[in-house]
């Protein structure tokens, strides 16, 4: 394992110290328990958005804290959910009196830890809503699994709901908007390589040089099938077909197309993927109204990408275009 770290168990702590050193003008980093809040928190009268999850997915979630997006992010250990006390303290730090929306990705650990945090926050008199994001079409049967995983739609939901919160939408409406984003978004990913958790020191799973894992989860969970490597157009067609058929998206739809890098794939390849996706969607009569291309929800050093499509309407488009000023996403300011 080659990594630019000191001691593996210090990586998350030292990352947070680096974030604090770099972005003290925009963010406040709290340790023990760990959470990142926007520098002007709490914003009086605004619904506060709190998210979190295991570390190793940067810039998600800490890179999305700031004007127009999250009020707080709670980083857990690498690929390990944050704990309820972390989420509770973050919620208290950002509650501006209009309540707190917890945006949770659908993994057993995240769901339970945020649920406990919500109970604790309610005990302290904070109004809380939770929305669980589960957009990964690679997981099929929710009756016999923990359900679909939360992936790319999380980034889109945080951006769109953050904009609504800035416009002082009340908590039930921001939560409703978050559910709407989740209901209209679908994703699927592919891994070209495994990833290595610093404390584990070896790859999470084995993948031969000429193999890919279709439907990979962001912690290296297995997907739908393992295949031989193919040209980009074939891989993109597989991912896009699964995503489009699931909602389903149809002729005449306008979408936000999000091509996300898993951490170890160059932007060059992400644009190759986008080009294939663009051609395919055009052929299917689906218009790309907005796009996002880059590594926003990563899996450490994994090579690969995910494709997320979100069906747009005027409301979602307007909130997507609204100003955002975070270290990960920034426009309109």
């Amino acid at each position, binding site marked *: 394992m080659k990594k630019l770290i000191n001691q593996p168990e210090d990586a998350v702590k030292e990352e947070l110290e680096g974030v604090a050193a770099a972005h003290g003008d925009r963010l406040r980093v709290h340790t023990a328990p760990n959470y990142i809040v926007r520098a002007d928190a709490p914003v009086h009268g605004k619904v506060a958005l709190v998210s979190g999850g295991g570390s190793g997915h940067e810039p998600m979630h800490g890179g999305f804290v700031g004007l127009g997006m999250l009020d707080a992010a709670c980083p857990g250990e690498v*690929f390990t959910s944050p704990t309820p006390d972390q989420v509770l303290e973050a919620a208290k730090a950002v509650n501006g009196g209009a309540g707190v929306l917890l945006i949770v990705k659908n993994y057993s650990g995240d769901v339970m830890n945020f649920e406990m945090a919500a109970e604790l926050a309610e005990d302290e008199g904070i109004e809380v809503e939770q929305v669980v994001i589960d957009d990964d079409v690679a997981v099929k049967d929710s009756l016999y699994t923990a359900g679909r995983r939360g992936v790319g739609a999380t980034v889109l939901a945080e951006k769109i709901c953050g904009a609504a919160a800035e416009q002082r939408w009340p908590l039930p409406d921001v939560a409703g908007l978050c559910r709407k984003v989740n209901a209209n978004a679908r994703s699927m990913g592919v891994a070209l390589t495994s990833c290595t958790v610093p404390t584990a020191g070896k790859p999470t799973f084995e993948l031969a040089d000429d193999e890919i894992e279709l439907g990979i989860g962001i912690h290296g969970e297995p997907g739908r099938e393992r295949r031989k490597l193919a040209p980009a157009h074939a891989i993109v067609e597989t991912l896009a077909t699964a995503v489009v058929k699931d909602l389903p998206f149809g002729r005449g739809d306008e979408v936000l197309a999000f091509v996300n890098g898993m951490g170890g794939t160059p932007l060059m390849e992400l644009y190759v993927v986008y080009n294939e996706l663009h051609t395919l969607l055009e052929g299917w009569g689906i218009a790309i109204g907005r796009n996002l291309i880059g590594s926003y929800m990563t899996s450490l050093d994994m090579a690969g990408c995910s494709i997320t499509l979100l069906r747009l309407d005027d409301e979602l488009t307007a909130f997507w275009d609204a100003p955002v000023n975070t270290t990960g996403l920034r426009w309109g300011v």
Partner: protein
Amino acid sequence: MRDTVTQGGLTAWLRAFAAAVARDREELTDLDAAIGDADHGSNMDRGMQAVVGKLGGLSPDEAGVGVGALLKTVGMTLVSTVGGAAGPLYGSLFLDMGKAAGEDAELTVAQWATAVEAGVRGVQARGKAELGDKTMIDALAPAAEALSAAAACGLSLADALRRTAEAAAQGMKATTPLVARKGRASYLGERSAGHQDPGATSSWLLMQAAAEALASDAPPDRPRT
């Protein structure tokens, strides 16, 4: 041997469980690597070391009150240190046991059985798992049932705990052929069969530690003044 559960017995039990988790840390992690994310041993070890640290440093207030308060302290410590899915699940087990145990300084076998049943219901409420989903519940639910049956028959604490551990062991072994329906292992579908569940394994360790130490008449830790 005592026939009631006291703070001293609880402390001995938690120390024995912490020692078992530390001893079997790699085994738990290897079981988890096969069907999960390879962190159950390290997460449980971190949590139980924190619990042991807490036991040694209880204030007179915390140490002076009943069995229930101690169990709740253990639950909150696990919730804030274990993370992942095991943190809320083991946390809920101890928190709900603590609520059911109340303020008494010692519990009879029947009261202990009631507390354990409440804890196991708490785990089920938190994780929404049913028997046969290949989770902790597969060890805990039969264990709680055996304990209640033993209490109803008027067995001694030591005998009741032995039966509880045996039931947990059977439940744990029975998870091997199961296909996981909850947690990260469920993404594997059929591929999860043939592996013993790591959560059921740590739950068996917990019940085995109770059989070894909970009936001991060790004095509680001297409160720090």
